[in-house]
């Protein structure tokens, strides 16, 4: 058998899941869609003592609007998000991020919470969450707390979740009218993790940029907000030259881009600039044309 032995639990409530996690003191892993964890188990790179399968916890699934925000249960499948009219209307950037994840067969099983909690630096959903200032809700033995996206991603495959906490839902602001968005990435093969990518929102006030958010992925240990580039855009009259200098600045906003066998540090910086430029162009188009989600 491929994975090493583990104890298996299939709780029906978040409270039960958290109490099992707590009992194993960091030696148990949550199993969501399994699209990253099961390969790690198969290769025995991960050898947890126990697996806590969340697939039987109904309260973790679903998409809803609440207090003017879009709230998505952690166990909601990526495919469900992709097909949700509510998501398409309320936060289309999320839809575009999800469509860039792997392949439909993976998205059928993969969940939003699993991807966020796994925190692969090249994954789309963490960058989308950072670009949108999402809020994460986590429940553990000490109760429930909210975590801001800027605090959630700590390092490579590491989040602010404690070993006995369960990510339960993620809340996103709804996209304001007159805002544009885009997710752009480059990968060696269709469906692969990105070498680099950018998730961007941009809103206009006449011909001026009211504000923009830019999150870069695949270039650092966590998604990087390009605050410098956002500052370049803020309040300025929009032009091709302005987008050029914002994209240039986004490259400079990355302190030390990742370097590995797939791409050098400098190549990743170059890609981040190019993806930012493309995403800004697409976002601007959508902002000007009163954005449909096509």
């Amino acid at each position, binding site marked *: *058998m491929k994975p090493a032995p583990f104890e298996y639990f299939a709780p029906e409530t978040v409270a039960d899941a958290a109490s099992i996690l707590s009992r194993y003191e960091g030696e148990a892993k949550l199993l969501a869609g399994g699209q990253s964890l099961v390969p790690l188990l198969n290769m025995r790179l991960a050898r947890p003592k126990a697996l806590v399968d969340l697939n039987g916890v109904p309260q973790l699934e679903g998409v809803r609007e609440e207090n003017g925000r879009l709230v998505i249960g952690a166990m909601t499948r990526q495919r469900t998000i992709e097909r949700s009219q509510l998501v398409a209307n309320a936060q289309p950037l999320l839809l575009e991020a999800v469509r860039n994840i792997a392949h439909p067969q993976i998205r059928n099983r993969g969940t939003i919470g699993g991807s966020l909690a796994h925190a692969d630096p090249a994954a789309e959903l963490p960058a989308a969450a950072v670009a949108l200032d999402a809020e994460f809700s986590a429940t553990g033995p000490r109760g429930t707390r909210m975590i801001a996206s800027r605090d959630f991603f700590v390092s490579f495959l590491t989040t602010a979740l404690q070993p006995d906490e369960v990510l339960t839902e993620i809340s996103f602001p709804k996209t304001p009218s007159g805002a544009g968005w885009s997710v752009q990435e480059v990968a060696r093969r269709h469906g692969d993790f990105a070498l680099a990518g950018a998730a961007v929102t941009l809103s206009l006030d006449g011909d001026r940029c009211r504000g923009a958010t830019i999150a870069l992925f695949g270039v650092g240990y966590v998604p990087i907000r390009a605050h410098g580039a956002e500052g370049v855009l803020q309040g300025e009259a929009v032009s091709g030259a302005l987008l050029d200098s914002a994209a240039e600045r986004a490259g400079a906003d990355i302190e030390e881009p990742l370097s590995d066998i797939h791409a050098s540090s400098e190549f990743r910086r170059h890609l981040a600039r190019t993806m930012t430029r493309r995403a800004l162009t697409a976002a601007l188009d959508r902002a000007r044309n009163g954005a449909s989600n096509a």
Partner: protein
Amino acid sequence: MPERRDLRLRVNGVTHETAVEPRLTLVDFLRGELGLGGVHVGCEHGVCGACTVLIDGRAARSCIMLAVQADGGEITTVEGLSTDGSLHPIQQAFLESHGLQCGFCTPGFIMSICELLEDNESPTEDEIKETLGGNLCRCTGYENIIKSVHLAAEKMRAQP
């Protein structure tokens, strides 16, 4: 003796009640315990798509899913497609359009296409490519597989 866990699921219309080790992957269960050799094991880490089956109607990779996760579910493998000895229209289309050469990847492709055509009876070229992107073929160069999907869609639309 490692702990085993009760498992009840329907595979190709037949209910199975058994007990398995929690670490057994679904593909190893389908092949090893049920003898369904049409579910192929390729990369064993979710990249190649050869092990694709339908789980409650949705295509997924059975090598990166535990058998216990399918508890209560309905699984369809390539063995479940043909009826009374006649090929499913997708299989027939692969035969007629030369959609396979060595055949190793074929069951996975067929199951992915099965989900696609259930949802969408006339997929565009782009929609077909988006679906097939999750399955690797080292022989055909994909062109004849795309042709097979178009032909299969045509055959299925013509069905009463």
